[in-house]
Protein backbone atom coordinates (compact mmCIF):
# COMPACT_ATOMS: atom_id res chain seq x y z
CA UNK A 1 0.00 0.00 0.00
CA UNK A 2 1.58 3.28 -1.05
CA UNK A 3 1.61 5.81 1.77
CA UNK A 4 1.50 9.57 1.41
CA UNK A 5 5.29 9.93 1.72
CA UNK A 6 5.87 7.38 -1.01
CA UNK A 7 3.59 9.29 -3.38
CA UNK A 8 5.54 12.47 -2.70
CA UNK A 9 8.73 10.49 -3.22
CA UNK A 10 7.39 9.16 -6.52
CA UNK A 11 6.49 12.63 -7.74
CA UNK A 12 9.93 13.79 -6.67
CA UNK A 13 11.54 10.93 -8.63
CA UNK A 14 9.43 11.52 -11.72
CA UNK A 15 9.46 15.27 -12.15
CA UNK A 16 12.21 16.73 -10.00
CA UNK A 17 15.07 14.20 -10.11
CA UNK A 18 14.43 13.07 -13.68
CA UNK A 19 15.57 15.61 -16.27
CA UNK A 20 13.06 14.29 -18.82
CA UNK A 21 10.21 14.66 -16.36
CA UNK A 22 11.34 18.15 -15.38
CA UNK A 23 11.61 19.25 -19.00
CA UNK A 24 8.22 17.70 -19.79
CA UNK A 25 6.37 19.33 -16.92
CA UNK A 26 8.02 22.69 -17.73
CA UNK A 27 6.88 22.52 -21.35
CA UNK A 28 3.33 21.55 -20.40
CA UNK A 29 3.16 24.31 -17.76
CA UNK A 30 4.45 26.81 -20.32
CA UNK A 31 1.47 26.02 -22.56
CA UNK A 32 -0.93 25.93 -19.62
CA UNK A 33 0.08 29.51 -18.81
CA UNK A 34 -0.18 30.44 -22.49
CA UNK A 35 -3.73 29.05 -22.56
CA UNK A 36 -4.80 30.79 -19.34
CA UNK A 37 -3.18 34.11 -20.20
CA UNK A 38 -4.10 34.11 -23.91
CA UNK A 39 -6.62 36.99 -23.60
CA UNK A 40 -4.01 39.14 -21.83
CA UNK A 41 -0.91 38.39 -23.92
CA UNK A 42 -2.53 38.15 -27.36
CA UNK A 43 -1.95 41.42 -29.21
CA UNK A 44 -5.30 41.18 -31.06
CA UNK A 45 -8.64 39.44 -30.92
CA UNK A 46 -7.90 36.28 -32.97
CA UNK A 47 -11.42 36.28 -34.39
CA UNK A 48 -11.34 39.91 -35.54
CA UNK A 49 -10.15 41.09 -38.92
CA UNK A 50 -7.34 43.44 -37.96
CA UNK A 51 -5.38 44.01 -41.13
CA UNK A 52 -4.97 43.27 -44.80
CA UNK A 53 -4.96 39.55 -45.60
CA UNK A 54 -1.76 37.55 -46.22
CA UNK A 55 0.69 40.10 -44.82
CA UNK A 56 4.22 38.92 -44.11
CA UNK A 57 5.55 39.08 -40.52
CA UNK A 58 6.00 42.65 -39.25
CA UNK A 59 6.38 44.41 -35.85
CA UNK A 60 2.57 44.84 -35.77
CA UNK A 61 1.85 41.23 -36.75
CA UNK A 62 4.71 39.00 -35.61
CA UNK A 63 3.65 36.07 -37.76
CA UNK A 64 1.76 38.11 -40.33
CA UNK A 65 -1.96 37.92 -41.07
CA UNK A 66 -3.97 35.02 -42.42
CA UNK A 67 -6.12 34.71 -45.53
CA UNK A 68 -8.89 36.87 -44.09
CA UNK A 69 -6.68 39.32 -42.20
CA UNK A 70 -6.66 37.89 -38.66
CA UNK A 71 -3.48 38.16 -36.61
CA UNK A 72 -1.74 34.76 -36.77
CA UNK A 73 0.24 35.08 -33.52
CA UNK A 74 -2.99 35.77 -31.61
CA UNK A 75 -4.58 32.76 -33.31
CA UNK A 76 -1.62 30.61 -32.26
CA UNK A 77 -1.84 31.77 -28.62
CA UNK A 78 -5.56 30.93 -28.46
CA UNK A 79 -4.91 27.64 -30.26
CA UNK A 80 -3.09 26.36 -27.15
CA UNK A 81 -6.47 26.25 -25.38
CA UNK A 82 -7.94 23.79 -27.86
CA UNK A 83 -4.92 21.49 -27.88
CA UNK A 84 -4.69 21.44 -24.08
CA UNK A 85 -8.42 20.91 -23.64
CA UNK A 86 -8.49 17.98 -26.05
CA UNK A 87 -5.14 16.68 -24.82
CA UNK A 88 -6.29 16.56 -21.21
CA UNK A 89 -9.95 15.54 -21.42
CA UNK A 90 -9.95 12.89 -24.17
CA UNK A 91 -7.23 10.68 -22.60
CA UNK A 92 -8.75 11.23 -19.15
CA UNK A 93 -12.08 9.81 -20.30
CA UNK A 94 -10.34 7.06 -22.26
CA UNK A 95 -8.23 6.02 -19.26
CA UNK A 96 -11.30 6.04 -17.01
CA UNK A 97 -13.11 3.65 -19.39
CA UNK A 98 -9.95 1.54 -19.68
CA UNK A 99 -9.56 1.40 -15.91
CA UNK A 100 -13.14 0.34 -15.16
CA UNK A 101 -13.13 -2.32 -17.88
CA UNK A 102 -9.57 -3.47 -17.07
CA UNK A 103 -10.39 -3.86 -13.37
CA UNK A 104 -13.63 -5.72 -14.11
CA UNK A 105 -12.05 -8.06 -16.66
CA UNK A 106 -8.91 -8.71 -14.66
CA UNK A 107 -10.56 -9.16 -11.31
CA UNK A 108 -13.82 -10.91 -12.18
CA UNK A 109 -12.54 -13.14 -14.97
CA UNK A 110 -14.94 -15.61 -16.58
CA UNK A 111 -17.67 -14.41 -18.93
CA UNK A 112 -17.13 -10.74 -18.04
CA UNK A 113 -13.47 -11.08 -18.96
CA UNK A 114 -14.33 -12.84 -22.24
CA UNK A 115 -16.75 -10.07 -23.22
CA UNK A 116 -14.40 -7.23 -22.32
CA UNK A 117 -11.39 -8.89 -23.94
CA UNK A 118 -13.47 -9.43 -27.06
CA UNK A 119 -14.41 -5.75 -27.12
CA UNK A 120 -10.73 -4.82 -26.69
CA UNK A 121 -9.79 -7.10 -29.60
CA UNK A 122 -12.42 -5.48 -31.80
CA UNK A 123 -11.39 -1.94 -30.90
CA UNK A 124 -7.72 -2.69 -31.56
CA UNK A 125 -8.50 -4.20 -34.96
CA UNK A 126 -10.75 -1.40 -36.25
CA UNK A 127 -9.39 0.85 -39.01
CA UNK A 128 -9.23 3.70 -36.50
CA UNK A 129 -8.17 6.73 -38.51
CA UNK A 130 -10.70 6.27 -41.36
CA UNK A 131 -13.49 5.61 -38.85
CA UNK A 132 -12.50 8.69 -36.82
CA UNK A 133 -12.62 10.69 -40.05
CA UNK A 134 -16.08 9.32 -40.86
CA UNK A 135 -17.40 10.09 -37.38
CA UNK A 136 -15.84 13.55 -37.28
CA UNK A 137 -17.15 14.35 -40.75
CA UNK A 138 -20.73 13.34 -40.06
CA UNK A 139 -21.30 13.88 -36.35
CA UNK A 140 -20.61 17.53 -36.95
CA UNK A 141 -17.38 19.32 -36.20
CA UNK A 142 -17.72 20.31 -32.55
CA UNK A 143 -14.93 20.13 -30.00
CA UNK A 144 -17.06 17.95 -27.71
CA UNK A 145 -17.66 15.44 -30.51
CA UNK A 146 -13.95 15.25 -31.25
CA UNK A 147 -13.11 14.70 -27.58
CA UNK A 148 -15.72 11.93 -27.31
CA UNK A 149 -14.58 10.28 -30.55
CA UNK A 150 -10.92 10.31 -29.45
CA UNK A 151 -11.88 8.90 -26.05
CA UNK A 152 -14.00 6.19 -27.65
CA UNK A 153 -11.16 5.03 -29.89
CA UNK A 154 -8.46 5.50 -27.26
CA UNK A 155 -9.30 3.17 -24.37
CA UNK A 156 -8.55 -0.30 -25.72
CA UNK A 157 -4.74 -0.36 -25.41
CA UNK A 158 -4.90 0.88 -21.81
CA UNK A 159 -7.63 -1.58 -20.86
CA UNK A 160 -5.47 -4.44 -22.07
CA UNK A 161 -2.54 -3.30 -19.92
CA UNK A 162 -4.72 -2.72 -16.83
CA UNK A 163 -6.37 -6.12 -17.24
CA UNK A 164 -3.01 -7.92 -17.37
CA UNK A 165 -1.73 -5.95 -14.40
CA UNK A 166 -4.84 -6.62 -12.29
CA UNK A 167 -4.63 -10.32 -13.09
CA UNK A 168 -1.09 -10.48 -11.78
CA UNK A 169 -1.89 -8.37 -8.71
CA UNK A 170 -4.95 -10.46 -7.88
CA UNK A 171 -2.84 -13.38 -6.74
CA UNK A 172 -0.34 -11.35 -4.67
CA UNK A 173 -0.18 -12.19 -0.98
CA UNK A 174 -1.54 -8.90 0.32
CA UNK A 175 -4.63 -9.20 -1.87
CA UNK A 176 -5.11 -12.83 -0.86
CA UNK A 177 -4.76 -11.75 2.77
CA UNK A 178 -7.39 -9.04 2.37
CA UNK A 179 -9.73 -11.56 0.79
CA UNK A 180 -9.11 -14.06 3.59
CA UNK A 181 -10.00 -11.31 6.08
CA UNK A 182 -13.36 -10.97 4.34
CA UNK A 183 -12.86 -7.79 2.29
CA UNK A 184 -15.46 -7.38 -0.45
CA UNK A 185 -14.58 -7.51 -4.15
CA UNK A 186 -15.22 -3.78 -4.52
CA UNK A 187 -13.03 -2.98 -1.54
CA UNK A 188 -10.20 -5.13 -2.85
CA UNK A 189 -10.44 -3.60 -6.30
CA UNK A 190 -10.50 0.00 -5.18
CA UNK A 191 -8.53 0.00 -1.93
CA UNK A 192 -5.94 -2.69 -2.57
CA UNK A 193 -5.43 -2.98 -6.31
CA UNK A 194 -6.15 0.51 -7.65
CA UNK A 195 -3.38 2.36 -5.75
CA UNK A 196 -0.64 0.15 -7.14
CA UNK A 197 -1.89 0.89 -10.64
CA UNK A 198 -1.33 4.64 -10.17
CA UNK A 199 1.91 4.95 -12.19
CA UNK A 200 0.45 2.99 -15.13
CA UNK A 201 -2.70 5.09 -15.00
CA UNK A 202 -0.67 8.30 -15.14
CA UNK A 203 1.53 6.94 -17.94
CA UNK A 204 -1.59 5.96 -19.89
CA UNK A 205 -3.06 9.45 -19.52
CA UNK A 206 0.05 11.39 -20.55
CA UNK A 207 0.90 9.09 -23.45
CA UNK A 208 -2.76 9.34 -24.50
CA UNK A 209 -2.45 13.12 -24.33
CA UNK A 210 0.32 13.12 -26.93
CA UNK A 211 -1.66 11.02 -29.35
CA UNK A 212 -4.91 12.96 -28.74
CA UNK A 213 -3.14 16.25 -29.45
CA UNK A 214 -1.62 14.89 -32.66
CA UNK A 215 -4.90 13.33 -33.83
CA UNK A 216 -6.97 16.45 -33.06
CA UNK A 217 -4.46 18.58 -34.97
CA UNK A 218 -4.55 16.07 -37.84
CA UNK A 219 -8.36 16.19 -37.98
CA UNK A 220 -8.39 19.99 -37.91
CA UNK A 221 -5.72 19.93 -40.61
CA UNK A 222 -8.04 17.82 -42.77
CA UNK A 223 -10.82 20.34 -42.13
CA UNK A 224 -12.75 18.13 -39.71
CA UNK A 225 -12.09 20.18 -36.60
CA UNK A 226 -14.39 22.64 -34.87
CA UNK A 227 -14.39 25.70 -37.18
CA UNK A 228 -15.64 28.00 -34.42
CA UNK A 229 -12.56 27.68 -32.18
CA UNK A 230 -8.96 28.44 -33.06
CA UNK A 231 -6.68 25.42 -33.12
CA UNK A 232 -3.16 24.80 -34.37
CA UNK A 233 -4.26 22.18 -36.87
CA UNK A 234 -6.86 24.56 -38.28
CA UNK A 235 -4.24 27.33 -38.66
CA UNK A 236 -2.06 24.87 -40.60
CA UNK A 237 -5.03 24.01 -42.79
CA UNK A 238 -5.73 27.61 -43.70
CA UNK A 239 -2.03 28.21 -44.31
CA UNK A 240 -1.81 25.26 -46.66
CA UNK A 241 -5.05 26.17 -48.44
CA UNK A 242 -3.76 29.74 -48.95
CA UNK A 243 -0.48 28.47 -50.45
CA UNK A 244 1.48 30.00 -47.56
CA UNK A 245 4.67 28.24 -48.61
CA UNK A 246 4.47 29.36 -52.22
CA UNK A 247 3.94 32.92 -50.91
CA UNK A 248 7.03 32.55 -48.68
CA UNK A 249 4.90 32.92 -45.54
CA UNK A 250 6.55 29.90 -43.95
CA UNK A 251 6.37 31.13 -40.34
CA UNK A 252 2.59 30.74 -40.66
CA UNK A 253 3.16 27.01 -40.94
CA UNK A 254 6.31 26.70 -38.87
CA UNK A 255 5.09 28.09 -35.53
CA UNK A 256 1.76 26.26 -35.05
CA UNK A 257 3.36 22.96 -36.09
CA UNK A 258 6.27 23.56 -33.74
CA UNK A 259 3.84 24.17 -30.87
CA UNK A 260 1.94 20.95 -31.63
CA UNK A 261 5.24 19.08 -31.57
CA UNK A 262 6.43 20.81 -28.38
CA UNK A 263 3.26 20.19 -26.39
CA UNK A 264 3.15 16.58 -27.60
CA UNK A 265 6.80 16.16 -26.62
CA UNK A 266 6.11 17.69 -23.20
CA UNK A 267 3.51 15.04 -22.39
CA UNK A 268 5.63 12.27 -23.91
CA UNK A 269 8.62 13.31 -21.75
CA UNK A 270 6.51 13.02 -18.60
CA UNK A 271 5.42 9.60 -19.86
CA UNK A 272 9.03 8.50 -20.38
CA UNK A 273 9.90 9.70 -16.88
CA UNK A 274 7.06 7.63 -15.39
CA UNK A 275 8.20 4.64 -17.44
CA UNK A 276 11.71 5.00 -16.05
CA UNK A 277 10.30 5.25 -12.55
CA UNK A 278 8.43 1.98 -13.08
CA UNK A 279 11.42 0.24 -14.66
CA UNK A 280 14.50 1.26 -12.64
CA UNK A 281 16.88 -0.70 -14.83
CA UNK A 282 16.36 1.77 -17.68
CA UNK A 283 16.81 4.63 -15.25
CA UNK A 284 20.01 3.62 -13.56
CA UNK A 285 22.07 3.65 -16.73
CA UNK A 286 21.28 7.17 -17.84
Amino acid at each position, binding site marked *: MPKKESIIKAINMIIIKNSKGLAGISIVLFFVFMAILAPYIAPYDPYAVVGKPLQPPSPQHWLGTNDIGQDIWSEVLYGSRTSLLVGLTAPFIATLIALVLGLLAGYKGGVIDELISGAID*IMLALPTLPLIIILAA*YLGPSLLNIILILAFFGWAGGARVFRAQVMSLRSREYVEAARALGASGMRIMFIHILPSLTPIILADIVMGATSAILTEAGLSFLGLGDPTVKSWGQILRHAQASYALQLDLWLWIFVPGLFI*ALLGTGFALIGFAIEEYMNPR*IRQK*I
Partner: protein
Amino acid sequence: MNPYIYKRIIRSIVVFFIILIINFILPRAMPGNPASILANQYNLPAATVEILIKEWKLDAPLYEQFIAYIKSLFTGQWGYSYQYYPRTVYEIVMERLPWTLLLQGTTTVTVGLTGILLGILAGWRRGKISDTLITLSAVIVYAIPYYWLALLLQYFLGYKLRLFPISQALTPGAVYNSWFDYVVDVLRHLALPVLAVTLTAYASYTLITRNTMIDLLGEDFVFVSRAMGLPENKIMRMVARNAMLPPITMLTIRVGYIIGGAVITETIFSYPGLGYLIYQSIIYKDYPVLNAAFFMLSVTIILANLAADFIYMFLDPRIRYGERR
Protein backbone atom coordinates in the same frame (compact mmCIF):
# COMPACT_ATOMS: atom_id res chain seq x y z
CA MET B 1 -0.27 -27.36 -32.45
CA ASN B 2 -0.79 -25.25 -29.40
CA PRO B 3 -4.51 -24.92 -28.40
CA TYR B 4 -3.83 -21.23 -27.79
CA ILE B 5 -3.25 -20.79 -31.51
CA TYR B 6 -6.64 -22.29 -32.42
CA LYS B 7 -8.34 -20.12 -29.87
CA ARG B 8 -6.57 -17.03 -31.18
CA ILE B 9 -7.50 -17.79 -34.81
CA ILE B 10 -11.16 -18.48 -34.03
CA ARG B 11 -11.30 -15.32 -32.01
CA SER B 12 -9.79 -13.32 -34.87
CA ILE B 13 -12.44 -14.66 -37.23
CA VAL B 14 -15.24 -13.64 -34.85
CA VAL B 15 -13.66 -10.21 -34.39
CA PHE B 16 -13.35 -9.90 -38.17
CA PHE B 17 -17.07 -10.50 -38.73
CA ILE B 18 -18.06 -8.02 -36.06
CA ILE B 19 -15.77 -5.47 -37.69
CA LEU B 20 -17.41 -6.15 -41.06
CA ILE B 21 -20.75 -5.27 -39.45
CA ILE B 22 -19.32 -2.07 -37.94
CA ASN B 23 -17.79 -1.15 -41.30
CA PHE B 24 -21.24 -1.54 -42.85
CA ILE B 25 -23.16 0.40 -40.24
CA LEU B 26 -20.93 3.39 -39.51
CA PRO B 27 -20.77 5.04 -42.94
CA ARG B 28 -24.50 4.42 -43.46
CA ALA B 29 -25.54 5.69 -40.05
CA MET B 30 -24.37 9.17 -40.97
CA PRO B 31 -26.80 11.71 -42.47
CA GLY B 32 -26.90 12.48 -46.20
CA ASN B 33 -27.05 10.05 -49.09
CA PRO B 34 -24.47 9.63 -51.85
CA ALA B 35 -26.88 10.37 -54.69
CA SER B 36 -27.75 13.83 -53.37
CA ILE B 37 -24.08 14.58 -52.56
CA LEU B 38 -23.21 13.81 -56.20
CA ALA B 39 -26.25 15.78 -57.37
CA ASN B 40 -25.01 18.82 -55.45
CA GLN B 41 -21.55 18.42 -56.87
CA TYR B 42 -22.62 18.18 -60.52
CA ASN B 43 -25.99 19.99 -60.44
CA LEU B 44 -27.93 16.88 -61.39
CA PRO B 45 -31.71 17.14 -61.83
CA ALA B 46 -33.98 15.53 -59.22
CA ALA B 47 -35.09 12.83 -61.68
CA THR B 48 -31.50 11.62 -62.04
CA VAL B 49 -31.14 11.41 -58.27
CA GLU B 50 -34.24 9.18 -58.19
CA ILE B 51 -32.76 6.93 -60.85
CA LEU B 52 -29.41 6.74 -59.03
CA ILE B 53 -31.09 5.82 -55.75
CA LYS B 54 -32.99 3.00 -57.55
CA GLU B 55 -29.92 1.90 -59.47
CA TRP B 56 -27.73 1.79 -56.34
CA LYS B 57 -30.54 0.17 -54.30
CA LEU B 58 -30.19 2.85 -51.62
CA ASP B 59 -33.94 2.55 -50.94
CA ALA B 60 -33.78 -1.21 -50.26
CA PRO B 61 -34.25 -2.33 -46.64
CA LEU B 62 -31.02 -2.27 -44.65
CA TYR B 63 -30.85 -6.05 -44.18
CA GLU B 64 -31.07 -6.58 -47.96
CA GLN B 65 -28.26 -4.06 -48.44
CA PHE B 66 -26.29 -5.90 -45.78
CA ILE B 67 -26.69 -9.27 -47.48
CA ALA B 68 -25.66 -7.72 -50.80
CA TYR B 69 -22.67 -6.12 -49.02
CA ILE B 70 -21.42 -9.39 -47.55
CA LYS B 71 -22.01 -11.22 -50.84
CA SER B 72 -20.10 -8.63 -52.84
CA LEU B 73 -17.13 -8.61 -50.45
CA PHE B 74 -16.58 -12.35 -50.55
CA THR B 75 -17.24 -12.82 -54.27
CA GLY B 76 -14.98 -9.94 -55.27
CA GLN B 77 -17.90 -8.38 -57.19
CA TRP B 78 -17.38 -4.96 -55.64
CA GLY B 79 -19.67 -3.14 -58.06
CA TYR B 80 -19.36 0.36 -59.47
CA SER B 81 -17.89 3.38 -57.77
CA TYR B 82 -20.37 6.22 -57.15
CA GLN B 83 -17.87 9.04 -57.59
CA TYR B 84 -16.06 7.54 -60.60
CA TYR B 85 -19.19 6.01 -62.14
CA PRO B 86 -19.18 3.96 -64.42
CA ARG B 87 -15.76 2.62 -63.41
CA THR B 88 -15.68 -0.50 -61.25
CA VAL B 89 -14.39 -0.43 -57.69
CA TYR B 90 -12.05 -3.31 -58.43
CA GLU B 91 -10.42 -1.41 -61.27
CA ILE B 92 -9.92 1.74 -59.19
CA VAL B 93 -8.64 -0.10 -56.13
CA MET B 94 -6.18 -2.15 -58.15
CA GLU B 95 -4.92 1.00 -59.83
CA ARG B 96 -4.32 2.70 -56.44
CA LEU B 97 -3.10 -0.25 -54.38
CA PRO B 98 0.41 -0.56 -55.91
CA TRP B 99 1.19 3.09 -55.09
CA THR B 100 0.16 2.67 -51.46
CA LEU B 101 2.12 -0.57 -51.19
CA LEU B 102 5.18 1.10 -52.70
CA LEU B 103 4.98 4.16 -50.44
CA GLN B 104 4.14 2.30 -47.25
CA GLY B 105 6.40 -0.67 -47.97
CA THR B 106 9.33 1.70 -48.40
CA THR B 107 8.55 3.64 -45.22
CA THR B 108 8.08 0.44 -43.21
CA VAL B 109 11.59 -0.66 -44.21
CA THR B 110 13.23 2.75 -43.66
CA VAL B 111 11.41 3.35 -40.36
CA GLY B 112 12.24 -0.15 -39.08
CA LEU B 113 15.89 -0.06 -40.11
CA THR B 114 16.60 3.46 -38.84
CA GLY B 115 14.68 2.95 -35.63
CA ILE B 116 16.09 -0.42 -34.66
CA LEU B 117 19.72 0.29 -35.65
CA LEU B 118 19.80 3.60 -33.75
CA GLY B 119 18.16 1.91 -30.77
CA ILE B 120 20.75 -0.89 -30.70
CA LEU B 121 23.56 1.64 -30.91
CA ALA B 122 22.10 3.82 -28.15
CA GLY B 123 21.39 0.86 -25.88
CA TRP B 124 24.86 -0.62 -26.34
CA ARG B 125 26.59 2.70 -25.73
CA ARG B 126 24.22 3.65 -22.92
CA GLY B 127 25.24 6.70 -20.96
CA LYS B 128 27.76 7.77 -23.62
CA ILE B 129 27.38 10.88 -25.74
CA SER B 130 26.09 8.97 -28.76
CA ASP B 131 23.32 7.48 -26.60
CA THR B 132 22.36 10.88 -25.24
CA LEU B 133 22.25 12.36 -28.75
CA ILE B 134 20.21 9.50 -30.22
CA THR B 135 17.77 9.33 -27.30
CA LEU B 136 17.38 13.08 -27.13
CA SER B 137 16.67 13.40 -30.86
CA ALA B 138 14.24 10.48 -30.71
CA VAL B 139 12.39 12.10 -27.80
CA ILE B 140 12.25 15.39 -29.71
CA VAL B 141 10.92 13.97 -32.99
CA TYR B 142 8.58 11.56 -31.16
CA ALA B 143 5.71 14.03 -31.17
CA ILE B 144 6.42 15.92 -34.41
CA PRO B 145 3.31 15.81 -36.59
CA TYR B 146 4.46 14.24 -39.84
CA TYR B 147 2.09 16.32 -41.93
CA TRP B 148 3.82 19.42 -40.57
CA LEU B 149 7.25 18.07 -41.39
CA ALA B 150 5.87 17.13 -44.80
CA LEU B 151 4.80 20.72 -45.43
CA LEU B 152 8.21 22.07 -44.36
CA LEU B 153 10.03 19.53 -46.55
CA GLN B 154 7.79 20.49 -49.45
CA TYR B 155 8.81 24.10 -48.87
CA PHE B 156 12.55 23.76 -48.28
CA LEU B 157 13.53 20.72 -50.36
CA GLY B 158 10.77 20.92 -52.95
CA TYR B 159 9.86 24.52 -53.48
CA LYS B 160 13.06 26.39 -52.48
CA LEU B 161 15.85 24.00 -53.47
CA ARG B 162 13.82 22.23 -56.18
CA LEU B 163 15.42 18.92 -55.24
CA PHE B 164 12.26 16.81 -55.29
CA PRO B 165 8.74 17.12 -56.73
CA ILE B 166 6.19 18.11 -54.08
CA SER B 167 3.16 16.13 -55.23
CA GLN B 168 1.82 13.23 -57.31
CA ALA B 169 3.56 9.90 -57.94
CA LEU B 170 4.73 10.62 -61.49
CA THR B 171 5.46 13.78 -63.45
CA PRO B 172 2.17 14.59 -65.24
CA GLY B 173 2.43 14.11 -69.00
CA ALA B 174 5.97 12.78 -68.85
CA VAL B 175 7.20 10.53 -71.64
CA TYR B 176 9.83 8.01 -70.56
CA ASN B 177 12.59 6.93 -72.92
CA SER B 178 13.53 3.92 -70.84
CA TRP B 179 12.39 2.03 -67.77
CA PHE B 180 15.30 3.62 -65.94
CA ASP B 181 13.88 7.13 -66.42
CA TYR B 182 10.56 5.83 -65.15
CA VAL B 183 12.09 4.35 -62.00
CA VAL B 184 14.03 7.55 -61.31
CA ASP B 185 10.85 9.59 -61.64
CA VAL B 186 8.98 7.27 -59.27
CA LEU B 187 11.78 7.41 -56.69
CA ARG B 188 12.03 11.20 -56.89
CA HIS B 189 8.32 11.49 -56.15
CA LEU B 190 8.69 9.00 -53.33
CA ALA B 191 11.47 10.96 -51.63
CA LEU B 192 9.55 13.61 -49.68
CA PRO B 193 6.69 11.47 -48.32
CA VAL B 194 9.12 8.73 -47.27
CA LEU B 195 11.45 11.26 -45.64
CA ALA B 196 8.60 12.96 -43.75
CA VAL B 197 7.24 9.71 -42.35
CA THR B 198 10.64 8.14 -41.60
CA LEU B 199 12.02 11.17 -39.76
CA THR B 200 9.02 11.26 -37.44
CA ALA B 201 8.09 7.58 -37.03
CA TYR B 202 11.50 6.03 -36.32
CA ALA B 203 11.62 7.48 -32.81
CA SER B 204 9.32 5.05 -30.99
CA TYR B 205 11.24 2.08 -32.46
CA THR B 206 14.54 3.57 -31.32
CA LEU B 207 13.26 4.16 -27.80
CA ILE B 208 11.79 0.69 -27.37
CA THR B 209 14.86 -1.02 -28.84
CA ARG B 210 17.14 0.97 -26.58
CA ASN B 211 15.11 0.21 -23.46
CA THR B 212 14.99 -3.50 -24.32
CA MET B 213 18.77 -3.51 -24.96
CA ILE B 214 19.43 -1.96 -21.55
CA ASP B 215 16.99 -4.38 -19.94
CA LEU B 216 18.74 -7.35 -21.52
CA LEU B 217 22.25 -6.08 -20.77
CA GLY B 218 21.38 -6.36 -17.09
CA GLU B 219 20.42 -10.04 -17.44
CA ASP B 220 22.52 -12.85 -16.00
CA PHE B 221 23.35 -14.37 -19.37
CA VAL B 222 25.26 -11.24 -20.35
CA PHE B 223 27.14 -11.29 -17.06
CA VAL B 224 27.99 -14.96 -17.52
CA SER B 225 29.05 -14.45 -21.14
CA ARG B 226 31.37 -11.63 -20.09
CA ALA B 227 32.79 -13.76 -17.27
CA MET B 228 33.41 -16.52 -19.80
CA GLY B 229 35.45 -14.08 -21.83
CA LEU B 230 33.16 -13.87 -24.86
CA PRO B 231 34.27 -10.99 -27.14
CA GLU B 232 32.21 -7.82 -26.78
CA ASN B 233 31.02 -7.75 -30.40
CA LYS B 234 29.59 -11.26 -29.99
CA ILE B 235 27.76 -10.19 -26.84
CA MET B 236 26.43 -7.15 -28.63
CA ARG B 237 25.11 -9.25 -31.49
CA MET B 238 23.50 -11.70 -29.09
CA VAL B 239 21.79 -8.97 -27.08
CA ALA B 240 20.82 -6.96 -30.18
CA ARG B 241 19.16 -9.97 -31.78
CA ASN B 242 16.90 -10.35 -28.76
CA ALA B 243 16.32 -6.63 -28.36
CA MET B 244 14.90 -6.56 -31.89
CA LEU B 245 11.85 -8.64 -30.96
CA PRO B 246 9.62 -5.95 -29.41
CA PRO B 247 10.24 -3.43 -32.24
CA ILE B 248 9.70 -6.13 -34.86
CA THR B 249 6.38 -7.00 -33.24
CA MET B 250 5.50 -3.30 -33.29
CA LEU B 251 6.52 -3.11 -36.94
CA THR B 252 4.31 -6.10 -37.78
CA ILE B 253 1.34 -4.39 -36.14
CA ARG B 254 2.22 -1.22 -38.08
CA VAL B 255 1.92 -3.19 -41.33
CA GLY B 256 -1.76 -3.65 -40.48
CA TYR B 257 -2.26 0.10 -40.46
CA ILE B 258 -0.49 0.60 -43.78
CA ILE B 259 -3.59 1.59 -45.73
CA GLY B 260 -5.39 3.54 -43.02
CA GLY B 261 -2.22 5.37 -42.01
CA ALA B 262 -1.70 6.55 -45.57
CA VAL B 263 -4.76 8.82 -45.52
CA ILE B 264 -3.11 12.06 -44.39
CA THR B 265 0.28 11.48 -46.08
CA GLU B 266 -1.30 10.76 -49.43
CA THR B 267 -3.73 13.65 -49.12
CA ILE B 268 -0.87 16.14 -48.51
CA PHE B 269 1.20 14.84 -51.41
CA SER B 270 -1.82 14.15 -53.68
CA TYR B 271 -0.32 10.69 -53.91
CA PRO B 272 -2.66 8.48 -55.97
CA GLY B 273 -2.90 5.66 -53.42
CA LEU B 274 -5.69 4.01 -51.43
CA GLY B 275 -5.42 6.43 -48.50
CA TYR B 276 -6.28 9.42 -50.67
CA LEU B 277 -9.05 7.37 -52.30
CA ILE B 278 -10.52 6.52 -48.87
CA TYR B 279 -10.52 10.17 -47.87
CA GLN B 280 -12.33 11.17 -51.08
CA SER B 281 -14.76 8.28 -50.71
CA ILE B 282 -15.68 9.33 -47.17
CA ILE B 283 -16.41 12.84 -48.39
CA TYR B 284 -18.53 11.54 -51.33
CA LYS B 285 -20.04 8.66 -49.33
CA ASP B 286 -18.88 6.31 -52.05
CA TYR B 287 -20.16 3.17 -50.27
CA PRO B 288 -18.91 0.57 -52.76
CA VAL B 289 -15.34 1.94 -52.58
CA LEU B 290 -15.53 2.30 -48.79
CA ASN B 291 -16.84 -1.27 -48.48
CA ALA B 292 -13.94 -2.67 -50.47
CA ALA B 293 -11.31 -0.43 -48.88
CA PHE B 294 -12.47 -1.11 -45.32
CA PHE B 295 -12.65 -4.81 -46.09
CA MET B 296 -9.02 -4.78 -47.20
CA LEU B 297 -8.05 -2.60 -44.23
CA SER B 298 -9.69 -4.96 -41.76
CA VAL B 299 -8.14 -8.05 -43.33
CA THR B 300 -4.63 -6.55 -43.18
CA ILE B 301 -5.03 -5.33 -39.60
CA ILE B 302 -6.33 -8.70 -38.36
CA LEU B 303 -3.65 -10.68 -40.19
CA ALA B 304 -0.91 -8.34 -38.98
CA ASN B 305 -2.12 -8.59 -35.37
CA LEU B 306 -2.22 -12.38 -35.62
CA ALA B 307 1.28 -12.43 -37.10
CA ALA B 308 2.56 -10.15 -34.33
CA ASP B 309 1.03 -12.46 -31.72
CA PHE B 310 2.67 -15.51 -33.21
CA ILE B 311 6.05 -13.82 -33.62
CA TYR B 312 5.86 -12.87 -29.97
CA MET B 313 4.81 -16.34 -28.90
CA PHE B 314 7.59 -18.13 -30.74
CA LEU B 315 10.41 -15.66 -30.28
CA ASP B 316 9.81 -13.99 -26.92
CA PRO B 317 13.17 -14.10 -25.14
CA ARG B 318 11.41 -14.76 -21.84
CA ILE B 319 10.16 -18.03 -23.22
CA ARG B 320 13.60 -18.94 -24.43
CA TYR B 321 15.50 -17.91 -21.36
CA GLY B 322 12.92 -19.30 -18.99
CA GLU B 323 10.42 -17.41 -16.87
CA ARG B 324 12.27 -15.58 -14.18
CA ARG B 325 10.10 -12.60 -13.46
